[in-house]
């Protein structure tokens, strides 16, 4: 019969929606990777900051608020940094969770789409 070339597999609206969903998830995955990287960096910076704080013997620390460095007593700076660390860690946890969920959904969709289209579709990163 006919050689391959123009494949005759029909693409239904459901298939199209699956492909769209996969594309959306893939984009979200990359966004999440960036956000996670930034959150990890912020966490590291806060860690370094609180370490420096322990080492310093100054009573008043210049703490960045907005665009200026305000003179803030050491204790207040410590509690501020602790708060910021908590927020960032919680945020990081949420992002990691979302990333896992996105990866799982993508794996599901890959199974479905490869099942129907086989070689006619490519869902890998180039």
């Amino acid at each position: 019969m006919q050689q391959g070339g123009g494949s005759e597999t029909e693409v239904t609206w459901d298939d199209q929606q699956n492909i769209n969903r996969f594309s959306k998830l893939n984009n979200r995955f990359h966004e999440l990777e960036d956000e996670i990287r930034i959150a990890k960096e912020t966490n590291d910076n806060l860690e370094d900051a609180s370490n420096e704080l322990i080492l310093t013997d100054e009573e008043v620390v210049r703490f960045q608020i907005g665009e200026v460095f305000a003179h803030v007593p050491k204790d207040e700076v410590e509690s501020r940094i602790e708060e910021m660390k908590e927020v960032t860690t919680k945020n990081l946890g949420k992002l990691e969770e979302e990333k896992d969920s996105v990866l799982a959904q993508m794996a599901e969709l890959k199974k479905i789409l490869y099942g129907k289209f086989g070689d006619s579709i490519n869902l890998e990163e180039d």
Partner: protein
Amino acid sequence: MMASSSGSGEAATERRGIPGAQFVEDVQTYLAQAGLDANSALAFLQERLQQYKLVEMKLLAQQRDLQAKIPDIEKCLDIVATLQAKKGSGEALLADFEVSEGIYSRARIEDTDSVCLWLGANVMLEYSCEEATALLQKNLENAKASLEVLVADLQFLRDQVTITQVTIARVYNWDVHQKRIRQAGAPVKDS
């Protein structure tokens, strides 16, 4: 060219000025209905794709702007909150600020009931701390809401791009397939 037949639950046909991509149930029917041959259809679809890409770039730029604006507003809120906290204590707030690149100076900010907010267009207005907080909070919420709408727009746009890309592939494949059939058919006729 609005979405015609096939009531297979297609997506919205347009969103905020972005035309929806028509989903094609069957390539042959689509080409017949549009009265186009494969090449013209491909050309039309490619052009659509380019238009989508342009809009995507514009939306991405807007998204970047908003994403930069939001932390700025949050920093402002932080400062106003700090000033308000200091108000009761009676001592001034000492702050080092940047006078010019790399050059800092110390400022002594006394107890104050008001702050000045830059509203843009070379306009700066004085507000009480409470009013300033309220205004900044409202701006923050607006920015976040705009960002949400923008993200939804981008998702819609990307869906249309994907649909168009898949349609292009299918039309192209269909065309290749048709050519193969014609080629296979020709030798038989000649004999």
